[in-house]
């Protein structure tokens, strides 16, 4: 397994763990009361920030681990990695659009800010999840020929 594929697996796990942590923290802080009153902001920013930091640290760790093994052929990205990356981005992009449009409509309908922020975060998480799964599927089974 090359660097890019390991990175993709790491990103998938980090995305799932960070979003699940966020949901658990918000539900616990709501304590059975209305969700819109829960202090979600700190958890939202905290889990996104932590996910980014952990992803950077894990990526550096993977690169060091490969370098220690002195496996030159597994370093860096090549043409196939770039094609798989572009394919994954295309797959995940739809959720970003859905999230943006949903947030826009919710803002126009004057929904609570809690729901607007959360629909964006949910679609952001789904986008990352879809992208990672698409990339792993392409690494394992090959890129689809349209």
């Amino acid at each position: 397994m090359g660097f890019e594929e390991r990175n993709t697996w790491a990103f998938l796990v980090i995305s799932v763990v960070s979003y699940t942590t966020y949901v658990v923290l918000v539900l616990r802080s709501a304590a059975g009361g209305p969700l819109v009153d829960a202090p979600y902001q700190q958890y939202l920013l905290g889990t996104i920030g932590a996910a980014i930091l952990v992803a950077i640290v894990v990526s550096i760790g993977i690169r060091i681990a490969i370098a220690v093994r002195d496996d030159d052929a597994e370093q860096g990205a090549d043409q196939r990695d770039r094609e798989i990356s572009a394919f994954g981005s295309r797959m995940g992009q739809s959720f970003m659009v859905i999230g943006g449009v949903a947030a826009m409509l919710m803002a126009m309908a004057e929904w609570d800010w809690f729901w607007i922020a959360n629909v964006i975060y949910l679609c952001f998480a789904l986008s990352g999840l879809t992208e990672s799964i698409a990339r792993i599927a392409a690494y394992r089974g090959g890129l689809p020929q349209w």
Partner: protein
Amino acid sequence: MVRPTRVTNRIRTLRFEHSEMTQADLAKRIGATRQTVIAIEQGKYSPTLEMAFQIASVFGVPLDDVFQYPTSLENTP
């Protein structure tokens, strides 16, 4: 519609004919990862035209000695 690649290749055979060249050696010579060479050999990835020429160049053979594509007659059911 998703379909597997129809491009076949003789890379594995050519590697063994060239002093049992390893996948890692071939990858290094064409500037790719070993995983990409494995994916090409297994028919899971069709390389770019440039990479295909690089592979043929490593083995010192014409492109169609390395890669084959079924003609339309062969595909007729």
